[in-house]
């Protein structure tokens, strides 16, 4: 299972070289500006800006598609619900169900908004290392306790995930195959074992960390130095976000 956030962060493009803090601020503002859009006339701006940024990042198109697939089912169900349950002008009928004009335009807007936001999120997290992103969030005011928890959790998700896969393999080798609800008891013991192992590991991790000086006041090194080109990129993206927001308010 390929779940690492930053599998493509080692590439060398203008987006990858973009200093993480200015990139984070600019792209997060763009994401929120996208979520603010309700006017269907602004859809081309969202699509074009997402497309330009994704092309500049040179991330594989298949990578984006794989990230769109998973939540796609939920979005699909919701769009169907919107198409048929909205009130308004009937466009056409499929059996007893009527597709309304208002429902269709809202479903289209939500689908585009969803795709554009996922595109920007993918660019943001695939083009910087995750440790740097946590440092950026910390420098922007994320409480130290949350930043520490986030770093630890990210570090151990992969390890505990590997443990789970090993245990599932071991169960399969011994002939276990989850077939019915009767297997709930075995699966709950599996989940319980994961919790017990992670708890035991946390004890060892904590002791090792104390030996290395953990417990002193938390300090985060901020080594972000934005160049003129980074700031210029940030201004361009922020201007796009502001334009979208203002256009939404006044159009």
């Amino acid at each position, binding site marked *: 299972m390929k779940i690492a*956030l930053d599998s493509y962060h080692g590439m060398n493009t203008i987006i990858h070289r973009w200093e993480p803090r200015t990139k984070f601020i600019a792209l*997060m503002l763009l*994401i*929120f500006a*996208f*979520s*603010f859009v309700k006017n269907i006339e602004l859809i081309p701006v969202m699509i074009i800006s997402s497309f330009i940024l994704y092309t500049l990042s040179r991330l594989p198109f298949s990578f984006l598609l794989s990230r769109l697939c998973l939540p796609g089912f*939920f*979005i699909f169900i*919701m769009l169907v619900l*919107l198409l048929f*349950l*909205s009130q308004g002008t009937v466009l056409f009928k499929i059996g007893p169900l009527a597709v309304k004009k208002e429902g269709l335009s*809202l479903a289209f807007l*939500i*689908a*585009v908004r*969803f*795709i554009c*936001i*996922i595109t920007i*999120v993918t660019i943001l997290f695939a083009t910087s290392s995750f440790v740097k992103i946590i440092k950026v969030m910390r420098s922007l005011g994320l*409480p130290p*306790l*949350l930043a*520490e*928890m*986030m*770093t*630890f*959790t990210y570090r*151990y*998700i992969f*390890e*505990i*995930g590997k443990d*789970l896969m090993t245990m599932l393999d071991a169960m399969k080798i011994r002939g276990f195959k*989850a*077939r*019915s*609800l009767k*297997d*709930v008891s075995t*699966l*709950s*013991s599996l*989940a*319980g074992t*994961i*919790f*017990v*192992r*992670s*708890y035991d590991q946390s*004890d060892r991790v*904590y002791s090792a*960390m104390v030996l290395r000086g*953990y*417990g002193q006041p*938390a300090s985060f090194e901020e080594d972000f130095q934005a160049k003129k080109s980074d700031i210029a990129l940030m201004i361009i993206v922020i201007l796009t976000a502001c334009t979208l927001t203002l256009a939404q308010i006044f159009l």
Partner: protein
Amino acid sequence: MHIPDGVLPTSVCAAGYAVTGIAVWYSLRKLNKQEDPRKDIPKASLVTAAFFVTSWIHIPIPPTSVHLMLTGLLGALLGYYAYPAAVIALFFQAVMFQHGGLTTIGVNAVILGIPAMLCHYIYSYGKGIINDSKVKNSILGLIIGVTGTGLSVFIWFLILINFISANLNASAERAAIITGTLAHVPLMALEGVFTAFILVYLKRVKPELLGEQSNENSAG
């Protein structure tokens, strides 16, 4: 059970962030009152990672399978760390799997975190009045499992149906809430049973995880 990006209006996302901000602030305030608040960070983080990973376990319900949320167990095991843990787990879900979204982390944290906090209070109160009886612990596990998931499902439907579009037909809205909630009743029951099994297992194998003394210590 997570709402993706682009679905909710910005005002609702902002309200979600505000409620989550207050809840996280409250949790951190409670945690900072402890003698050494950083001492439990590795434990809370690893258990958060374990929650994240256990959501990959699929329970067979022929002809399909489901994965569980374990909201009740999150509250019981993590206490005041439960809300920050929910925010962190949702952040990773959003950026790794696109389950949920960055703009909707606040709202999704309300859906997961508020029931988890409630289950923390129910569990803390419940364990004070029950003894080591396996049956009573199972019932407590069942209660927090059903309450956690039931409340999460209810908040999820309320938010989706009320805020997704003002244009939806009112009677269709009502029907969707009732149908959607009823469709999740088997899942709530399953969560309850699963939580009860895990709680009894942990009570037997690792009571320290539930904030109790180990069996070996108490025996000694």
